[in-house]
């Protein structure tokens, strides 16, 4: 008993130290002049299990809200989900105190559907899925268009004429990346596309988080002679970067292509092996939808699809110096062709075989 008492006393004293050095509470925006535009709208966002700090999808969504809170007097509420069964309570909790609630990720589909149905007077937006409720805006991306440009770069950069693709989970959404990428390779380097079309150099990790699996798959592909790999696999892609970096340090010339955000910036120590990244501007989507809400232009029930034309997808700002100007110019020409509708990029790997890109020099 004495020992316990002694322990408690010492803990209390220890706490005293902490209390002593606590910073005084910073006054909020009261002192500085606030030149943001006034609004009484409130915005909330629920992430999937990736949560804050995933350096990719969720962080991009939150970045869009950070931007809106610099322009308007809104303080977005953000809830992370620890597990899939928390999607629904999180969305419900956000609904109570907000006018617009974002659900980030296709996994939220069912939870969003249920919560939106129960609260018809509130507004919702979901990323990467379509929820058919009159108060939900569904925001999707033409990942195949951005991936096509990556395919063009990969097709031009390969020296071995072998290119690989690593996907997260073999499902419709990720297949859009695969199909677009292969179509891009096929447009500029049909020989290199063959082993992608028959899926010999296509690997799926089965999840979006297993870094070791990404490393193994990348090593397999690189060892079979592949020298450029594009990934659409979230955290699995970090394993790809690790493998590429290791081989590069061993004297081989191999490349990786990033996805979702500018990965040469988010994973800076691997920047030297990243050719470029396919940007998926989730931040633009959350920013635009929030702005629409504040300006009373929000359209529930609408399915928004953001492609190259809307700047929803595209090539990252950071491009490896190894990529020559004529390759970039070529990619830019293909971009123009996609934007004006000359090229229609396939969304399913099965359609790539029949796909014929008009030759652009």
């Amino acid at each position, binding site marked *: 008993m004495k020992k316990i008492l002694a322990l408690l006393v010492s803990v209390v004293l220890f706490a005293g130290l*902490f*209390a002593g050095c606590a910073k*005084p*509470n910073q006054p909020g925006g009261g002192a500085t002049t606030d030149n943001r535009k006034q609004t009484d709208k409130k915005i909330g966002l629920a992430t999937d299990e990736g949560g804050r700090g995933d350096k990719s999808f969720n962080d991009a969504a939150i970045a869009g809200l950070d931007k809106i809170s610099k322009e308007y007097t809104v303080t977005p509420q953000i809830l992370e989900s620890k597990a899939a*069964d928390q999607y629904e309570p999180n969305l*419900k*909790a956000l609904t109570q105190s907000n006018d617009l609630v974002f659900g980030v990720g296709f*996994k939220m*589909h069912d939870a969003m559907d249920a919560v939106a149905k129960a609260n018809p007077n509130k507004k919702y937006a979901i990323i990467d899925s379509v929820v058919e409720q009159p108060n939900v805006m569904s925001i999707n991306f033409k990942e195949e268009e951005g991936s096509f440009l990556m395919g063009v770069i990969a097709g031009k950069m390969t020296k071995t004429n072998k290119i690989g693709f690593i996907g997260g*989970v073999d499902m419709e959404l990720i297949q859009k990346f695969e199909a677009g990428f292969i179509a891009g390779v096929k447009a500029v380097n049909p020989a290199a596309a063959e082993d992608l079309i028959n899926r010999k150099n296509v690997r799926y990790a089965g999840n979006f988080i297993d870094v070791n699996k990404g490393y193994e798959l990348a090593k397999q592909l690189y060892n079979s002679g592949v020298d450029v790999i594009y990934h659409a696999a979230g955290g699995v892609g970090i394993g790809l970067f690790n493998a590429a970096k290791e081989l590069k340090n061993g004297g081989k010339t191999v490349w990786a292509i990033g996805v979702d955000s500018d990965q040469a910036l988010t994973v800076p120590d691997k920047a030297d092996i990243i050719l470029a990244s396919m940007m998926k501007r989730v931040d633009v989507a959350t920013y635009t939808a929030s702005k629409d809400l504040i300006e009373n232009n929000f359209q529930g029930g609408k399915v928004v699809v953001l492609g190259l034309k809307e700047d929803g997808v595209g090539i990252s700002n950071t491009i490896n110096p190894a990529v020559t100007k004529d390759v970039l110019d070529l990619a830019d020409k293909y971009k123009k062709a996609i934007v004006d509708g000359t090229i229609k990029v396939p969304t399913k790997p099965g359609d790539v075989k029949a796909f014929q890109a008009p030759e652009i020099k």
Partner: protein
Amino acid sequence: MTANANNSHNSLLNVLKSTYRTLLFPLISIIVAMFVAVLFVVWGRGVGFFEGTSLLFKAIWNGSFGSKDSLIETFVYVTPLLFTGLANAVAFKTGLFNIGVEGQFTIGVLITAILGLISGLPAIVHIPLIIVGGILAGAIWGGIPGYLKAKVGTNEVVNTIMMNFIAMYLSNYIVMGPLNKPGVASTPEIRPSAMLWRFLGENNRLNTGLFIGLLLIALVYILFWKTTIGYEIRAVGLNPYAAEYGGISIKKNMILAMVISGGIAGLGGAIYVSGIQHNAMELTGFIGYGFDGIAVALLAKSHPVGVLFASILFGALNSSAISLQLVNIPKQIVFLIQAIIIIFVAADYIYKWIGEKRKKEAMING
């Protein structure tokens, strides 16, 4: 007369004393855990000690019991913990460490998500079907390591951990493969006939599974202290060699305990799907209720009634993750509190173990 009264007075005192001793460590560990959590809030938010305390406890209270919605959500989280906590408690009582409750729970989830898709069954047939299916699946998943432990002597900890991964990847294969709902990372929703009744309305996820869990607490209590099987299980747990000397089969009881433990965990998975989740989702990691169940059983000292209170504590903490984030305290503080509780409870076990070892040495040397 006087002697009798004295006797009963003494026994009451003894009960109080032993209850006090059992509850002391869990209670101290909870208090210290909360205290450390407050320190982190003070540090992280840069507020004073009392402000930090009120911030944290207000958020936890609002998020767990403070409003009708949060109270309901707390018990939604309590429901699966009742099952996984009991499952771990049964294994602990036999002296086994069933890390595989997570996998047994997962396999229960998977089987229920599959059986729940059968159409054309009335609820009165369908619900017993998924319950039996969940129990059987979990029992097999727990029985395999139990059998291997008893017959070949392989460590149940290693085997159950491996079975966890088999369950998770099997589940992912089926969820993303044959039973995938196109465009979504889950199976289709189970039929209404396989869903447990949400007695507070469709929008509240609380369901009759809670009562099944409470009933199970009573059943496990009866099993432990009112049946021969329970007596044998406890005897093996206390001292397997003494139990064997008394004619109790160690092997039989080990397998039996693992089967019961797995069955309870599998039932938990079935209740989770048919009451709360209504489908099986792709798992990027373990669902987590099985591992939380270890903590619940440890805190409860493997007592069924203790499991109820420990589940409520852990459920309340899980549920308050929302309100904590709303006042800008990261949800990780919940894990911090849970982890410190476990460290302290485990320390209690080590303390006792060392104490017993010393006693033994003293006996041998003395």
